[in-house]
């Protein structure tokens, strides 16, 4: 069984339940965050080349494209966190009878945090 087949089964959307779609979003967000960790390590590593290099690199993230990048990253972070919390509870055998309500609450919390984050990123940091 190849990687392509595995990814297709994870990220299948057609005919899938909200639970499966949430699983796919959580996994996808996790993979993006793992990739971001690598980018972040490169970002931090520029300190070795001097403060001016690091500061110049940070300016990239202060640009409009950088802000969009921050918003997308924040979206993945809150989705992974909120859906991960749902996952941690049900995977421990807790609140199984109310898992649909719990999942809806996780999505609601993620969307609320997303909106708050966008406001902060665009109007405070931007």
């Amino acid at each position, binding site marked *: *069984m190849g990687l392509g*087949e*595995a*990814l297709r*089964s*994870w990220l*299948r959307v*057609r*005919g*899938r*339940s909200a*639970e*499966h779609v949430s*699983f*796919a979003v959580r*996994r996808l967000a996790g993979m993006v965050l793992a990739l971001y960790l690598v980018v972040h390590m490169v970002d931090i590593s520029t300190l070795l080349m001097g403060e001016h290099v690091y500061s110049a690199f940070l300016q990239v993230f202060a640009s409009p494209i950088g802000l969009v990048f921050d918003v997308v990253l924040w979206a993945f972070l809150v989705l992974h966190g909120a859906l991960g919390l749902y*996952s941690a509870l*049900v*995977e*421990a*055998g*807790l609140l*199984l009878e109310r*898992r649909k309500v719990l999942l809806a609450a996780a999505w609601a919390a993620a969307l609320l945090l997303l909106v708050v984050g966008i406001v902060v990123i665009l109007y405070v940091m931007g």
Partner: protein
Amino acid sequence: MRLVVRRWKEGWRAPRYDVFEVEADPSESVLDLVERVSLKLDPTLTFEHACHHGVCGACGMVVNGVERLTCVTRVGDVARNGVILVEPLHGFKVVSDLVVDKSRMFSRYPDDTRTLERVAAQVEKLWDCVECGICYSACPVACSYPSYLGPSVLAWAFHRAVEEGRVPAPVASRSGVWSCHAAFDCSEKCPVNFQPGEKIMRLRRLLLRGAVEVV
């Protein structure tokens, strides 16, 4: 009605989709249409069926993207714009057209026998499970991790754990309950509401509390 069937037979380089125009009543089952195609239009179309009333679990297929027992799935409930797409279950090796090899599921029950034989041997039937394999097809882990024991087998293990207070070591291993990632499509698609996903999580809880012995 337009019935689109995913076809593949041994020796073919790639699957293909055949389109059949068939008369259909909305109250008929999808299996009725498949049988009609086989009897009147293409006798080479292969598929599995037996009881025709949702008990044997033989006729599980993917209908318009959703795993269903086709004998109890009405045409009118699933057709989209007069089209029904029928595919074999995911997660199993396709033998021919709509027939899949479910041995990865059957071979992991404690005795390597089929349901009726287990009943005859006075070993319990799988409670309400009809062993259709739909939960394997719906599960993203079962479809990407061949060693995974699978939802119905682990749900069976939960019942055994509750009754006997112990589970076989593979159930408590990486290929067992710890590989489930709470996608819950097994429970959502199960035609008899056996709730394998919930049972796997309850078994995990028993293991975490040390309430069952691993043997």
